[in-house]
């Protein structure tokens, strides 16, 4: 339904106005768990961006050239999750061989990513919205960057919050959710810039 929207617009929208974390709530679990620490947040965000860009492209190809011609759309969920899991596994092996340094930075986060709902969510969204290949890549990359931006911002806020007098019962996930709400509110300020959906 967004056939006429160009890829750069989708890229921008996925980062700001339709941030997958703050508007579509994808990838909350790892967001809440990892955003305690700024360094891990940056690493995880990079890994998510990379995997998301590649898997949206892969899944688009699989969906267009295998699932639709053979009428297997109903098995989309299983196929997508297998593609994601296989890609992550492969990536882990390649990185380990090629760049031990990168492996130290990204390696620990890779297994986590298979069950990160943001990856599967982005793949399902792009199918529902009927994006073309280029639009899918833009959406995947933008979604990843948006997620990275949100988790790094949250990690920065949480580092500061360690010194703030948060009520004991609210500390931890509770206050994180409320801060995320405030962040979502401020991201809504972008929403007038692009009309999407």
């Amino acid at each position: 339904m967004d056939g006429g929207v160009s890829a750069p617009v989708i890229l921008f929208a996925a980062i700001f106005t339709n941030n997958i974390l703050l508007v579509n709530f994808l990838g909350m679990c790892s967001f809440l768990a990892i955003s305690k620490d700024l360094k891990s947040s940056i690493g995880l965000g990079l890994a998510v961006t990379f995997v998301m860009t590649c898997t949206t492209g892969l899944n688009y190809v699989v969906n267009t050239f295998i699932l639709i011609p053979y009428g297997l759309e109903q098995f989309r969920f299983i196929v997508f999750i297998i593609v994601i899991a296989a890609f992550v596994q492969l990536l882990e092996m390649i990185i380990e061989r090629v760049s031990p340094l990168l492996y130290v930075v990204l390696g620990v986060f890779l297994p986590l990513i298979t069950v990160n709902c943001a990856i599967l969510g982005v793949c399902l969204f792009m199918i529902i919205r009927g994006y073309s290949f280029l639009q899918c890549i833009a959406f995947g990359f933008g979604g990843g960057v948006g997620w990275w931006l949100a988790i790094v911002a949250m990690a920065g806020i949480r580092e500061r919050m360690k010194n703030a007098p948060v009520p004991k019962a609210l500390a931890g996930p509770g206050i994180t959710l409320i801060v995320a709400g405030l962040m979502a509110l401020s991201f809504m300020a972008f929403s007038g810039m692009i009309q999407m959906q």
Partner: protein
Amino acid sequence: MANQSQDSMAILGKALWEENPVFRQILGICSALAVTNLMVNTAIMGLSLIFVTAMSGATVSALRKITPARIRMMVQVLIISFYVIVVDIVLKAHLPDISRALGPYVGLIITNCIIMGRCEGYARSNPVWPSLVDGAANGLGYALVLLGVAFIREVLGFGSVFGFTVMPAGFTRWTIMVMAPAAFFVLGTFLWVANTFAPAKEKK
């Protein structure tokens, strides 16, 4: 038999309050936030989740002796995906409107950490019947919290409950409640209240 039903009750109590998957373990938040703008959607989502958690718990448990440990995660994901596809087909056939409203979030049940968590943490090492009860109870605990969040958002955002108007005619709708940030605020407040009345045990 009496002993067994007692065990079931214990599992249920644990899942609903003491170890409620949303309050205590902060699992499955993604869909908790996304589908709670209307109570009808939330109820359907809750029922789907109860079904998937219970059935995949039972299946994982039934196959636990013949599943090689190395590939068990993959096997679990496949079992869960299978039940999610069943739910998806049923929703599309009987409730097309709700299926459209839930959109990708039906598929995202696969990556809902509650189900994986129960399969990995309970069903893998327990008999079939308790695993089924445990899955259903955890699904129920999740569904109830979601309904609570959805209730607040729908009453304030649309002035209605399950689509029936309950607020007086002059009631001004809180538009913010329909939008994304309110989901964070309401769930955050829920966690606050839950932790105030029953502080979580200190974990180190």
